[in-house]
């Protein structure tokens, strides 16, 4: 008797489960049918929309009239990568938005850099990319999933008049499509510990110091203090160092690692990389730069060896600087920012002011307009940016930048000064700061080649050739 009962209950619940599933998905599809660009097919696969489903059908009719002020309950999904500081302040900003817009609920997820993109790739494959997501210079890989923001700007749905044209441009593609709105201005630099330089008797870096000065400083610091001369997150080094090194050769704008429209290499002679690779290998061999094992111990900028007091310098994207400046200040150490060294003191700086990252609207989103409104608020609201406090880079909106400039911390002041300094450097008219699909593998191999140079398996010349061949293979 009991067996029979149990069997009935089980099969009944299974059947009901099946019905519930199919019911939900069909409703989702129906609900998203009026979406702007006819993405009903994509949205049908959106299982995360399950909670929204009940309201969707009724809400959509309302949306057709004018959604700007409607109280339609909306759930947006959002994700970003970054450090703990960023997670905390972003969550606080989201809570503020939810307070101001009671109908909007934002479900957020945050990751470190690598895991963010792993997760994003799985979501791309299943057509479930977050409504609002963060992207950097590697956006070309995800271009199929990005909903351009032009239509929202043109229709007046979002007001970006506060963002100067030049700063809107840094997140446009060459065809003028607004990929997203920038989270802030950024550029690369080298953060260094002033006391360690003094202790080692090394002159502080000049504005136009060279890679030779850099190598010399790193070696001397490591000799005098027993710490690393120069540390660094491996992910920053390729772009800030290796790729910049190419741009610094010849005349301004003559070379770049990749060409301007990202269809091939920006330089011909692989041996242009050799001196840089040799220098990196020499530093690692001399113990002045972390080897692969030590490098694995750095998981984010907050436990970089510079921050823990075990290195004299490190690569930073300057938006990271205020955070580490404050941490070190608490421990009584003073950090400063130096420019990326040059090949020749009077040669091109190779540095570019770029967008740190941007927020994009996903094509999979059911609420593209709501997502766009959040992004515009995130970049232009003074209240919001008082919480965010320039952690993602110097804000692009004029009023926000003005409001924040009133009470900068010391670290932020240094960052602001540094960015204006880099702004005075001569830069080519057009630069390419984007990463092509496939760059990850090139960078991983490049790092292995450097280690092989360290262990003497291959020469720096061979490493340069191999790196060049790997990079070129992306475009074939």
């Amino acid at each position: 008797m009991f067996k029979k009962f149990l069997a009935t209950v089980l099969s009944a619940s299974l059947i009901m489960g099946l019905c519930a599933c199919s019911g939900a998905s069909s409703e989702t599809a129906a609900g998203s049918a009026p979406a702007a660009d006819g993405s009903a097919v994509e949205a049908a696969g959106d299982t995360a929309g399950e909670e929204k489903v009940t309201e969707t059908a009724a809400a959509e009719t309302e949306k057709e009239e004018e959604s700007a002020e409607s109280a339609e309950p909306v759930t947006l999904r959002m994700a970003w990568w970054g450090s703990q500081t960023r997670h905390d302040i972003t969550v606080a900003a989201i809570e503020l938005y939810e307070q101001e817009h009671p109908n909007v609920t934002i479900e957020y997820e945050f990751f470190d850099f690598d895991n963010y993109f792993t997760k994003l790739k799985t979501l791309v494959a299943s057509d479930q990319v977050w409504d609002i997501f963060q992207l950097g210079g590697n956006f070309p890989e995800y271009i199929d999933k990005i909903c351009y923001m032009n239509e929202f700007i043109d229709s007046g749905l979002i007001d970006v008049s506060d963002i100067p044209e030049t700063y809107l441009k840094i997140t446009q593609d060459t065809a003028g499509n607004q990929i997203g709105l920038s989270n802030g201005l950024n550029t690369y630099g080298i953060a260094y510990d002033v006391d360690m330089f003094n202790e080692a008797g090394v002159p502080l870096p000049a504005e136009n110091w060279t890679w030779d000065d850099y190598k010399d400083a790193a070696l001397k610091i490591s000799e005098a203090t027993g710490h690393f001369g120069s540390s660094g997150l491996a992910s920053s080094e390729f772009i800030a160092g290796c790729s910049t090194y190419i741009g610094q050769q010849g005349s301004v704008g003559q070379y770049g690692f990749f060409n301007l429209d990202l269809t091939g290499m920006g330089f011909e002679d692989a041996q242009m990389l050799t001196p840089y690779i040799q220098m990196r290998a020499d530093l690692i061999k001399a113990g002045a730069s972390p080897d692969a094992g030590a490098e694995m111990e750095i998981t984010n900028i907050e436990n970089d060896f510079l921050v823990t007091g075990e290195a004299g310098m490190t690569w930073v994207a300057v938006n990271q600087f205020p955070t580490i400046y404050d941490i070190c200040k608490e421990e009584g150490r003073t950090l400063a920012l130096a420019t990326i060294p040059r090949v020749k003191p009077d040669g091109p700086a190779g540095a570019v002011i770029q967008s740190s990252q941007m927020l994009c609207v996903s094509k999979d989103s059911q609420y593209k307009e709501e997502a766009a409104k959040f992004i515009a608020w995130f970049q232009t609201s003074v209240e919001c940016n008082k919480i965010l406090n320039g952690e993602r880079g110097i804000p692009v909106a004029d009023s926000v930048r003005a409001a924040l400039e009133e009470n900068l911390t010391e670290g932020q002041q240094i960052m602001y000064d540094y960015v204006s300094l880099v702004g005075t450097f001569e830069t080519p008219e057009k630069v390419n700061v984007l990463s092509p699909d496939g760059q990850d593998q090139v960078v991983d191999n490049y790092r292995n080649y450097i280690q092989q140079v360290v262990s003497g398996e291959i020469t720096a010349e061979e490493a340069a050739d191999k790196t060049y061949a790997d990079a070129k293979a992306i475009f074939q």
Partner: protein
Amino acid sequence: MITEKRRSGLKNFMNRNETVGYVFAFPFIFGFICFSLIPILTSFYYAFTDFSMGSKTVEFVGGRNFGQLFTDEIFTKSLGITLKYVFISVPMKLTFALLVAFLLTRKTRLQVLYRSLYYVPSLVGGSIAVALVWKQLFARKGLINSILTQAGLSSINWFGDRKLALYPLILMSVWQFGSSMIIFAAGLKEIPSTYYEAARIDGANGMQSFFRITLPCLSPIILYNLVMQTIQAFMAFTQAFVITAGGPDNGTMMYALYVYNQAFKYNNMGYACAMSWFMLAVMSVITVVIFRTSKFWVFSEAGD
């Protein structure tokens, strides 16, 4: 009349043993088909395409992915490293498991406690948390190195040296000997004590009775553990992913990690699928070899 008949037919149907069996087996069958069988079949199809997670177009490329395997340096390297890992870690793990199981057969009041304690690493061993602990233990300024320096030795850069980096990972796998140990312990209990008594009367010492009685009687269980652990070792992923990320210079690039990198990091899902199928072939060959050779060393009481 008719409805009556049909109802009783339904009643009969619901009461049949097979029906009940299938209903209870349904969760497994459902899970197996949806989450194992279908993905396995699709991965076989993808192995012949250029599928990547980012793009929506899938192009059939024939055997190109398999051809690429043999020109890929890192693939060869990762295969070698994985074989080395398997050939070192599995024998060590089994020896250790057998040793501990043997020691714990002695009847003490704390036997259960000891067994549970030794089993704990197996329970937590695959987790990220333990891998992180391991990373700290062997870090440049970690516990192991501070013990070494305290003892007056020079510290060792475990994860910075390509030749050394694999050994902490092997050690971590050996440390998770618990599940094999439990199976060995059960097997040891099955050996009739009369054998040992007879041997003792004949004047055999402990060593002799271990090698002449325990090992032969346990050999079917050793075979089972050997096969299971070999397969498991081929699939090792977590340690390499968390502790070394395959470095330094691909010195710990386990096969499963390289498959993961190709699939999710470098966006070559088709190639990754081809690699997985190649691994299946390698594992099958090795398992067949183990089974074929087993008739020379597995002792079956019923046989002779």
